């Protein structure tokens, strides 16, 4: 199970304040489905509004990115730039 942490406070309104959890997903797409199933609305919110950092690398819109069984996953706000 990968360890997932919500950073930035946006997602915890969906989880009832839960900030960290273990996830079984092995890809970003599977993670979005898993979050949606466990906390309705969260998967869509993460997909549209958040970035996903896996083992230190930030992914945006990368459904095929792989999550390992011992990965460190952070859900963080999307990043733009100028």
């Amino acid at each position, binding site marked *: 199970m990968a360890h997932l942490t919500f950073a*930035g406070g946006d997602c915890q309104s969906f989880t009832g304040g839960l900030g960290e959890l273990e996830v079984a997903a092995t890809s970003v797409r599977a993670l979005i489905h898993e979050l949606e199933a466990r906390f309705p609305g969260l998967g869509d919110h993460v997909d549209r509004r958040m970035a996903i950092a896996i083992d230190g690398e930030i992914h945006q819109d990368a459904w095929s990115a792989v999550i390992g069984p011992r990965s460190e996953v952070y859900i963080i706000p999307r990043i733009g730039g100028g």
Partner: protein
Amino acid sequence: MSEVLDRPQTEEPALKVVGTRPIRPDGFDKVTGRAAFGADFVMPGMLTGRVKRSPHAHARILSIDTRAARALAGVKAVVTRDDFPDLASEMHEGGEAASNLRDLAMNVMARDKALYHGHAVAAVAAVSPAIAEAALELIEVTYEPLPHVIDVEAAMAPDAPLLHAHIFTEGLEARPASPSNIARRHLFARGDVDAALAEAEVRVEGRYTTKATHQGYIEPHACVASMSPDGQCQVWCSSQGAFMVRTYCAKVLGLEISDVRVTPAEIGGGFGGKTTVYLEPLALALSRASGAPVKMVMSREEVFRATGPTSGAVVEVRLGARRDGTITAMDVELKYQAGAFPGSPVGAGCMTALACYDAPNFRIVGWDVVTNSPKVAAYRAPGAPISAFGVESAIDELAARLGMDPIALRQQNGARNGVKAAYGPTFQNIGYLETLAALKAHPHMQAPLGPNQGRGVAVGFWFNVGGESTAAIHIGEDGSATVVTGNPDIGGSRASMAIMAAETLGVPVEQVRPIVADTASIGYSMLTGGSRTTFATGLAVIRAAEKVIDELKRRAAVLWSVDADKVGWKSGAAVCLDPAKEVAPLTLARLAGQSARTGGPISAEVSLNAQGAGPGFGAHLCDVEVDPETGQVTILRYVVAQDVGRAIHPAYVEGQMQGGAAQGIGWALNEEYVFDADGVMENPGFLDYRMPVASDLPMIDTVIVEVPNPRHPYGAKGVGEVPIVPPLAAVANAVSAAIGVRMRHLPLSPPKIRAAVDARAG
């Protein structure tokens, strides 16, 4: 003068083109005036468009009467809010970060309320500029003026004038009972910061403020738009993303994306400010109404009054440490103006605020606050310079309190590989400490300081991003290569694309011609911003070049009658690996010359969503001299050290580092929006909005630090945004050292310096 650190020293460098400094592909056109910018485009029968803007900072629009304007001879179209569909609140990925389409459309053309002085309320198209301007005077708008609020903390007050009745603060534990101007709260925390502060042996705290500043691009917004009777649209404009313009125009006007074709002009600066649309949907609406092409060009005053600056802000910082210099607690609160609609860069301000530190206990709270001022737009590392100003100033105060060298304090507590960043992920392959070491070793550190002189250090971070990009490479029959991308060249990307294509193909860079194509001629690319283009679009270019090589090898195999796996590629030529064949290599030119016989034209296009952008860090060193009589600050010396992964074109990298520093120095010393009591900007021109010019600055020295990004074939990380992050604090720390008074409020203009000096004197 510049130096490059950490480049591998070998007799024959592995890279032959990457790291060289060829003449820029757009250089001749730019220096001879041949380059065509947004305002240079003309079409037969073209009309002139002008915008009528709100004279109030906050007002309900009761009615708009356009009859007199429409009746004026030479006026061909007038558009108002009635000509634009009302859009639902929907976040859309049209640019780089999501934008709310409803807010975007309402910023382009006001609906029920004007939300800032300068907000567009109507637009006209006429046969001449004089007639268009006369028509604006004939449009009668009836307003109900409302109280306004611009100061960020005043806007947060419970009794503040309310901009939007639908804003209920997001990001709180519970939805508030009533609306407010606070759109969102961000919170990042780890450990127990309150306990750590209570136990700290040394504590510092400060309240720091910054003013709204503009990106200051030299080219105002400009476009020509044409809509045919069948609904086909063309737009020629200067922007940071032609695909962004295409999407936003289609959404704001209710068009199909495939009906809009956008051709990018050369861009005279953007710095994030051209990552949205202002004029383009208006010009298309006027063209639709008039049946003629419409050209619109903003004046400098309009740029200031109606396009996005960055936020003015309040930054509060509390730090705790042990006497040995170990930082134990970092507490930061950020309050950012968003302008008329939600979406300040406070989220990024939070995420970057402590990225340079290994902080065991921290809390970062950010507030996104709407105000009656132009909607803020991205500005180079959006949000990061502001939070860095507060944090890096407090770190400087902490170093002084501890009696420590400020670089040593940062080294002791600095982020390094394996450290979990305050915004979450664990750092890998970062070069932060290397930048500090480069500063420490620089001769600038040994330069003596005289009376009224001071030295300041500050550091900064930016994520850098990847994202969607497309690139194509077409091989000409003489073996030359055209590299086609969809990213406007705002910082030298054409040169870096050509270099990476040449490196991969194994040909001289002069054999490669990079171009920027329109939205119908190349696949989608996200806009140029976020320090992404050399990394992400460069990756697409490299992959396209590799596909071209695969095709060239296949053609050589046909000519040599060998299997394709018996052909290699070396130094721009196919080489036969079959020991039974004694054949000379086939150069790219020879293969291209026979392409008709071996399968037709040789080209490849690659679209991808680049992941693995490497984060960037920079460290700046600044010496100033303060004239105690006038309060004038002179920058004596300035050094930028930055980890760039690998410099594809070092001269452009140095230019980015110098340009970011120069912009940050202006932000620190002079730039600010000054509003009168009615919420009207009082200094909407370059005479009164003081940006630094060349004669204000010394030669900014650069040290390129190279800790390669393993997720890019040539090691590239982003470059363009990091260098604007540290200067605000580097300058403020230097000025504070020079006059012996901590300067916490930007800009450090002469009256503030004089007041501080006078107060010190008692």
